[in-house]
């Protein structure tokens, strides 16, 4: 399952970041988003707009197309 | 007496206006550090200007 398909408020575990753009991957890693960490979808944009994720109490905004590349699994 | 006053006031005003105008145009031309708003608090001179961005496609 990709991260974009996750329901609002649902907590999931990141499984695979391999398909993520290299530049973004660096950013995500630096921010503490890695394989095995827990994230939660806080807000979804309409018309494929940017979404807000929460990870360890910090929030970030990401685009739909990048979220689709982040594979997650349910807890 | 009044001639002196007139000359003094006049030259102060025009002098000041000229100097300011000259300074601000020079500042704009000089670019980089001289025009930097942080100039007064910055004591180093390697302000590491960002490299050319129109032709840099690295990453």
């Amino acid at each position, binding site marked *: 399952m990709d991260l974009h398909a996750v329901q609002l408020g649902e907590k999931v575990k990141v499984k695979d970041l391999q398909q993520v*753009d290299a530049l*973004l991957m*660096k*950013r995500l*890693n*630096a*921010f*503490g988003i*890695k394989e095995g960490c827990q994230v939660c979808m806080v*807000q979804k*944009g*309409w*018309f*494929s*707009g*940017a979404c*807000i994720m929460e990870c*360890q*109490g*910090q*929030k*970030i*905004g*990401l*685009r739909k197309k*990048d979220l689709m590349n982040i594979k997650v699994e349910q807890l | 007496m*009044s001639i002196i*006053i*007139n000359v003094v*006031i*006049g030259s102060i*005003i*025009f002098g*000041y*206006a000229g100097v*300011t*105008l000259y*300074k*601000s*145009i020079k500042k*704009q*031309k000089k670019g980089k550090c001289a*025009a*930097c*708003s*942080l100039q007064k*608090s*910055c*004591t*180093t001179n*390697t*302000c*590491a200007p*960002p*490299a*050319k*961005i*129109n032709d840099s*496609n690295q*990453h």
Partner: protein
Amino acid sequence: MRRLALIGNPNIGKTSLFNTLTNSYEYVGNWSGVTVEKKVGQVKKLNKEIIDLPGVYTLNPISRDESVVTTFLLEEQIDGLLNIIDASNFERNMQLTLDLLELRKPIIICLNMMDVAKKKGISINIEKLQSTLGVPVIPIVARTGKGIEGIYQALESTSQLEQHFTLTYDTPIETAIATIEDLLQNVAAEQRRWCAIQFLMGNQAIDAFLQNEGYFHKIQTIRTALANEIGESLSGAITNQRDSYIATIKNELVIQEKSEKQWTEHIDKVLTHPVLGVPIFLALMYFMFQATFAWIGGPLSDLLDRFVGGPFSETVYNGLTAIGASSFIIHLICDGIIAGVGGVIVFIPQIFVLFFFISLLEDSGYMARIAVVMDRLMEFFGLNGKAFIPMIISFGCNVPGIMAARTIEQPKERLLTILVAPFMSCSARLPVYALFGAAFFAKHQSLVVLSLYLLGIVIALIVTKLLSMTLLKNETSVFFVELPSYHMPQLKTLWRSTWEKGKGFLRKAGTIIFAGSVIIWLLSYIGPHGTNVAMDESFLAMIGGAFGVLFIPLGFGTWQAGASLISGFLAKEVIVSTMAIIYGVNEGVLSSTMTTHFNALSAYTFLVFVLLYMPCLATVGAIKRETQSTKWTLFATIYPFVVAYLIALVVYTIGNLFI
């Protein structure tokens, strides 16, 4: 230790701490990337120098402002580091701290945001952290200045502090580190290990630094061999081992209790709502202009105007007559300087109110939310949601707006942002709107001004779209923005940042607006047939007339409009000064005099033209500095004129159909 560098993640209060330590008033805000350039300040009390660096997540640079930090650590001589850590985000912040500890410079860790951490139910065992890492750890709250004495004490007592922090990695990695260390003869002995580790992690700044060394090829081979041996990316392997180390520390030292749900969560839900987000933003903007023009700024401005135009002018006039000044001097001062500078000065209340709201936006944490809400729209036009931050900063002044574009990762998106930022209506254009608004649109002033601001945004977006389809075709773009937690804005910080912005305006009034007024007045006083000529026969009328012809199709083809537009290049406020001088009257009457030269439609067209037509002198300088390209600077100076002309023509033509 004499020179210390202040390093930490973005938006965790480095500049707040810098300001407190050095007693200065650098620019602070609540979004990632306020500081894009390093700044140096003095701690007078201790005779030390502190360098404030842009925030970074790691020492491995991605965007332009981040490379400043790694390059700085490599090339500059510093004696110690102040690493500031957000206590409420311990794990993430420790990544950078490990990077820095390996540098083996004396280091003091400042554990900031203890108050926020407490609210989130986090407590950290400070003594134990101190003994584990072997460096001083000081809890502080940088925004209020709590705990600063601790830093002073640590700075004084650890003057010859050494630290030998070593995190041992797996054997193959350690072997490679040792081999590389031996080769790095040109690097200071203490820093070799750090340099080797960063090199293995693929830090481009280190690669660039070592590139010309004879052994570069050799160490590159080591790196490739090691990567093959362990079968995963080296930076991944090293980071993983660091992660487990950090996790161990965290388990021992950090206690996380269940946090109470914060009230800001609910507000955030609404502000970042996918549908309501944009209308809310627009409503807030409208509120801002309503306060600026109708509620606070306008009335105060009227009072000031009455004072400058009345008692003040009279006193000066009487004084000058009393000391026997000639009529030339009296005209120069009263009709030139007082009219010109005074005409702009009366708008101080409006400008300060606007600056106050912009500071509020910056300090609250709302800025990053706007970036998220706007990203979809911006993406359509070929930009990044983050580009909205420089645009909003540009509402204050285009120069810092253009500087703020540095946080944008993609070079082309950054250039696009720089090119369109001058379309954002800066505070210098405000006096022009206020002047015309009062004369022609008294009832709907806020609405007219809001429409201009929005027009600026719309034109900027359209131009971006055109440019990104033609001259600057874009590669894939990345959007990543951190949403900081909201803070209750502090009155002191707000006042300071309002004042810092406002000061620039006052300085301009005393320099370039003054100089502009003197020149404009002089040009209007002399003509081909001598001095003290009728205004219509002055040099100013000739120059303005030649330029003004261009604007006949736009409905304001007078020499007065032409002359003020030329002088507006110095600074946009000078447009108002020029008009005040030309129409030869003070502010209050100016509005009514103008109604004979403009009608509502041509006035609005004029405002549209002023909004778009040309970046001011200071902005051109900023563009030159940031793009480092004469070609793009010239382009950025000239193309807005064409855009402005076309848009104004459209507005005037369409308007004429209805009126």
